[in-house]
């Protein structure tokens, strides 16, 4: 970056703003403190407190919430502790589903982004605009519409039956496949847009150079294009994976809420009968830790992808 900010006739930009840098940062820091740091700190503290019956906490240190997450003491809580698989299963189900949705979005999103970025400059904006149109509508409404579309006596099945493609209606609603479709549909643009931004900046003369050097199309894609747009791909994957992990609309409305997902498990601790706030906080902290680890891995991958410049 050395010299990147230097402009003729003035000092580096960083020096120009030096006297007011910290005052100008105050609003941003305040927002982060109030809306990010404080809630997370509160969650951390609550996860180590004693549960009050029917919601609330008693200000006494307790590891009960974490104990409940990791140890199974039977239906009546008096058996010797075994490893508790319930919550690990719930977390694993959510991670698996979010991972699959990310993969699906990548498979569809990458070619889409590539297609848009290779259109003539004046039509690209229209394509991007088209991608975002469905997202002007609230997520809840879109998920309910999806439900309507997929149901047994819905338009999709009716059409396929009328065309003679199917003899029996497809059972899509209340299946994991429907949840997958819902997540994929909800978060696809978060994959397309960062990849598009990366591909648009890509210098296509590199591809031409690769072709001149007898690289096959596949080799060009794999060894020239992909490394160059990797930051966009990683950003897209994070943007799809993280919200999918906490999604509860698609599992509830399309999957039938038969099994807890991370989001609904945590919600149940605050809004459900259980009213176990420390456990909800502990589950949130464990989720936060997992996401943080995933992000750290992704960032280090990205740093390697960008390489030394």
């Amino acid at each position, binding site marked *: 970056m050395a010299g990147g900010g230097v402009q003729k006739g003035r000092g580096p930009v960083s020096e120009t703003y030096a006297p007011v840098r910290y005052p100008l940062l105050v609003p941003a820091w305040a927002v982060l403190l109030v809306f990010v740091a404080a809630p997370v700190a509160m969650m951390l503290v609550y996860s180590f407190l004693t549960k009050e019956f*029917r919601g609330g906490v008693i200000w006494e240190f307790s590891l009960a919430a974490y104990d409940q997450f990791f140890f199974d003491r039977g239906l*009546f809580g008096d058996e010797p502790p075994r490893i508790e698989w319930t919550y690990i299963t719930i977390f694993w189900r959510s991670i698996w589903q979010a991972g699959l949705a990310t993969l699906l979005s990548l498979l569809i999103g990458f070619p889409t982004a590539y297609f848009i970025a290779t259109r003539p400059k004046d039509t690209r904006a229209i394509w991007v605009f088209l991608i975002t149109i469905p997202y002007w509508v609230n997520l809840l409404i879109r998920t309910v519409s999806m439900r309507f579309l997929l149901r047994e006596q819905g338009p999709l099945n009716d059409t396929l039956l009328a065309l003679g493609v199917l003899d029996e209606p497809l059972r899509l609603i209340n299946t994991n496949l429907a949840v997958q479709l819902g997540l994929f549909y909800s978060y696809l643009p978060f994959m397309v847009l960062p990849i598009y931004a990366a591909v648009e900046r890509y210098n296509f003369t590199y591809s031409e150079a690769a072709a001149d050097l007898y690289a096959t199309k596949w080799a060009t894609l794999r060894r020239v294009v992909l490394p160059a747009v990797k930051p966009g791909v990683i950003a897209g994957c994070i943007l799809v994976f993280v919200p999918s992990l906490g999604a509860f609309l698609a599992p509830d409305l399309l999957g*039938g*809420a038969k099994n807890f997902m991370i989001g609904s498990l945590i919600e149940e601790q605050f809004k459900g009968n259980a009213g176990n706030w420390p456990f909800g906080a502990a589950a949130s902290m464990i989720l936060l830790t997992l996401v943080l680890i995933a992000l750290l891995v992704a960032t280090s991958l990205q740093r390697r992808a960008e390489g030394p410049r």
Partner: protein
Amino acid sequence: MKFLTTTAITLAMTVGAAQAEGELVLYHWFEYIPQELLDKFTAETGINVTMDTYDSNEAMLASLKAGALGTYDVAVPGDYMVEIMIGEGMLDTIGDGELANKGNIAPQWANPSFDPGWKHSIPYQWGSTSFSVDTDTYSGDINTTDILFNPPEELKGKINMLDSQGEVLAMASLHLGIPQCSTDREQLKALNNMLQAAKENWASFNSDTAKEVLVSGDAAAGMIYDGFSAKAREEKASITYAFPTQGYVVWMDNVVLLKDAPNRDSAIKFMDFLLEPENIAAVSNFARYGNGLSGTAEFLDPALATLPEANPQPGAGAGAFIQVCDEATQAVYDQIWTNLKK
């Protein structure tokens, strides 16, 4: 005098918020009270009404516990939640003689188990929770809890349950004929095992869409509230509400006076307003539920008197309120629910 009153109402209506004689902050279920009734209250008393809504008793409790107590004047918890809130010390006491219309409460509801003597609450609406079956899909006997927990072949995989621990577990207890707050280990294990097996036949857990899944045909049987089922029948005639011989869940929503109510006087006026037969009948006509007052017959939609969803057939089991268990017992039921949904 009449002229004066009319003028006062007109004035109250025209000057609106700026010169209101008071405020009332209401915490209420969603889609339940008709807006016209709130407008009428404002017109009669000059009190401005602000309403926030919730979608479950537990959500309301959580919100009040998280610091919203002191924001609202009245809330509308269900029977067992009134008992819980009394136990938590979240309700204010209504003094003797504070409510002029208290005498309108129907004799059958004179002394409810959840708030003996109506010291903190007044009756609002009541009804039942059971299930409905699309009789086009299944034409056998539907008045048995086997429909949910041991379904006939036609209904397997087409059952929607309410996503609500209290109602599902209460219904399951009725099915097994065990008490709702059992401490008998064999009974609890049997309950746990029965639910695990029954879940195989269920399509979904959905409360908000309980009516819609039946009307659309996504489910052919589903747990539902009586008023919701009546609305479902208007859209699809084959949806029939069941009063199982094993019994069904009865609920009653009640208007409570919250502790630290910022506008206590307005709250009392509002409660008195809802204790007038004509006003509470307006809620019943809108929500299709029963109310707990005498003398409402002349104001009610005549269709309500013969509503199949509100009038159990001879031979139906008894209705039971959801019971409030102690902490240790509740922990086992919470565990059973988690097992069911893991």
